[in-house]
């Protein structure tokens, strides 16, 4: 059920695009209106969500300290796992966001039943899979910019050049596309195969992965198998991008399916766990320096509380305190 539903969902998206374009000839709807709407939902949704998070207070300084604190000059501290100022925090965040540092130190634990022993070993597969997935996704995205931009910035051509460095046939094989497909497949199978992971996975964990898998697949089909006319596509996307959308060319069904899948992903993004992309920057355990003993952190909603004062305490225990000779405020 957990996998079937999202699978049917993604299939449904493909079918809708198929019916819409192939049978009802709604090219304008699928080519222009839906992408625009999806994009607006994406931008507005993400901004609103971030604003909403931003409205929540950060009452306490609660970084997870994964290394030695800053104390004496003669004790070697760990600047980036236990940052003591904003600069170090930025490095910590950068390492986290760009290199998935926390995942890099991941371990897996196994129980040797016969010896009753737990073994904790370094486990880098999730790190590798996650990193490959996100980086290849990013580069693929960047590569797509060439479809929107005219002229193509030279930096972009550089990325492309490097991506297609290993010439394998024509058209040039982009490594990142392949890596994206492989890593997304790995992440998907990991969810299905590992019993614990499958146990806590939800339909909305499978859905985005399947969606991305389908997007990558349709993209590859377009490029390597059906060979969509790239000139028409570019003319169309440049039109979209410059807010002068026109549909004059026959772009091919597979292109519409690809575009519709992307639109759904965009519109789905702000309402889903995919928001982790933005949320990671706001995570208080990672984006704060551990300096709360040195510099006072202010809680915006701090309020006075009822306490049991010393005076009350002395009133409660005066006689007993007197017998053992403790100093008193009032005799």
């Amino acid at each position, binding site marked *: 059920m*957990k996998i079937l*539903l999202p699978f049917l969902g993604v299939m449904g998206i493909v079918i809708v695009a198929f019916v819409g374009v192939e049978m009802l000839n709604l090219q304008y709807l699928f080519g222009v209106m839906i992408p625009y709407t999806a994009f607006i939902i994406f931008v507005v949704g993400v901004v609103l*969500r971030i604003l909403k*998070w*931003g409205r*929540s207070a*950060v009452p*306490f*300084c*609660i970084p*997870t*300290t*994964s*290394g*030695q*604190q800053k*104390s*004496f000059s*003669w004790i070697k501290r760990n600047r980036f796992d236990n940052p003591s100022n904003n600069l170090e925090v930025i490095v910590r965040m950068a390492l986290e966001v760009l290199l*998935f540092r*926390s995942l890099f130190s991941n*371990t897996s*634990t196994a*129980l040797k*039943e016969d010896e*009753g*022993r737990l073994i904790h070993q370094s486990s880098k597969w*999730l790190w590798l899979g*996650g990193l490959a997935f996100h980086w290849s996704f990013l580069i693929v995205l960047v590569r797509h910019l060439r479809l929107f931009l005219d002229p193509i910035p030279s930096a972009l051509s550089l990325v492309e050049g490097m991506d297609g460095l290993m010439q394998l046939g024509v058209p040039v094989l982009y490594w990142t596309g392949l890596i994206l497909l492989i890593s997304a497949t790995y992440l998907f199978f990991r969810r299905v195969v590992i019993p614990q*992971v499958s146990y*806590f996975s*939800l339909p*909305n*964990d499978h859905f985005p992965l399947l969606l991305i898998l389908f997007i990558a697949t349709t993209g590859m089909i377009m490029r390597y198998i059906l060979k969509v006319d790239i000139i028409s596509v570019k003319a169309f996307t440049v039109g979209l991008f410059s807010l002068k959308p026109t549909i004059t060319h026959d772009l091919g069904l597979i292109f519409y399916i690809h575009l519709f899948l992307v639109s759904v992903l965009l519109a789905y993004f702000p*309402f*889903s766990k995919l928001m982790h992309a933005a*949320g*990671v920057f706001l*995570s*208080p*355990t*990672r984006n704060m320096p551990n300096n*709360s*003993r*040195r*510099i*006072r*952190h*202010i*809680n915006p909603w701090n309020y006075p*509380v009822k*306490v*049991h004062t*010393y005076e009350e305490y002395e009133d409660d*225990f005066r006689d*007993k*305190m007197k017998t*053992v000779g*403790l*100093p008193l405020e009032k005799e």
Partner: protein
Amino acid sequence: MSNLKPDELSKINYMPPEEDWMSVSVQMRKGMYCHGASENSLKTVGFPNPRKWSSAEADWKLPDNWQEIVLKGMAERLEKYRSFHIFMDICVRCGACADKCHFFLGTGDPKNMPVLRAELLRSVYRREFTTAGKILGKIAGARELTEDVLKEWWYYFFQCTECRRCSVFCPYGIDTAEITMIARELLNLLGLNIEWIAGPVANCYMKGNHLGLEPHTITSSVEFLLDEIEEITGIKIEPTFNRKGAEILFVTPSGDLFADPGTYTCMGYLMLFHELGLDYTWSTYASEGGNFGSFTSNEMGKRLNSKIYAEAKRLGVKWILGGECGHMWRVLNQYMDTWNGPADFLQVPVSPITGTVFENAASTKMVHISEFTADLLKHNKLEIDPSRNDHYKVTFHDSCNPSRGMGLLEEPRYIINKVCNNFFEMPENTIREKTFCCGSGSGLNASENMELRLRGGFPRANAVKHVKNKYDVNMLACICAIDRAALTTLMDYWVPGVKVIGVTELLANALKMKGENDRDTDLRGEPLSGAEDGDAKEDSEDV
């Protein structure tokens, strides 16, 4: 618990069951949970819904509008804590945290995987606070807040020691401890606490400390320790209590005054301060550094913590020195100044012995005993004979809170290396920020939940066992009062032959005091190895 032998208890099944976790109701197993909070304890501090109830019975005597109370509480906290709000939204369920929790590793219960523990709350959050959850329901991972769900919260959020190990590994730093704290606040709104927490909270509020020691009992407890010290060293120590004008206020967990082996650590403080001639005082009013209030609600934590600054102000001290305690230090490091500061009536702490300025405590004005001591040793201000600890082969347990909530990793190691000759680290993945919890933290060190504690302590014990087998380790050092109590039980069960010791006790063993007798025993009255040619080691292994 007691009827299960270690080799039986360590057979753990990590395979999750067939059924979907959302559709099964909670099975509360005896030995895995604590007694519910008593009416009196809740009343003492004005907590909601005080009543006679039992968690073992079906009827928990909830107020009629309990759902409304919880959901309102949740809405409020979503605004008050960005951590909570973000952590509800951005978990990708990658599972990196799953096998990091000692309770999962010790029980195999999938709801003890941090990700799923958080999902227990998140599912309700989705249903009530997100569009997708409202529309799609279960497909979006949302479920209704029923009484069953509430009971499940109670069961599993009191099976989390707020140790933060999961947070170290999460790519977004999602801290299930933070989620547990909020969940416990929500439960607290309905009077659903446990007595092992609510009792100490009430005690601490009225009497100044968790154990409910009254002023005269505190002084007599200390006097008892002074007699012991005199017997061992021949030195008569006369500490002061509630003395105005002292330079330093010393605050430590009341557990240190009460039971072995904490008392030995307490003797260590007394000896160290005496040797230094420190101008310090104890307080009977602020006689607790620990803070079980922080296991109920932020507000209660603040109410209990307020005593420390209030007393420092009343006594007119310059700064505060804090003893060995785990969660006390997380509270002091992350909350105290925010709650009850600014402590502008105090001065930036300066060691009167070495002149070191504790810049890292410039605002809280509170120094950790390990920082204080490490600085003394660095400056050679103490005469140390490490061979007096030669009958010990020591390993060190990083307590969760000072390591993952503060980053105090090297200071205690520095001390240990100076005061004893045989120090062995446990495996790398089980120490420092990756340290395993004792399994009894955050107020779970009761006796009725012993099976839970033993299971939760299994990963820690396992690593100790490793160094015991490899290096013949017989002593587990730590800097936490709950550890000293909890790990002792744990070692007796899982790794017999290994005892537990506070770092300051190790120091005091090695400390050559001016005018002391020829010591022939350690603080526990056990012969030093020089005195009896290594018999001590065998002794301690038979115990």
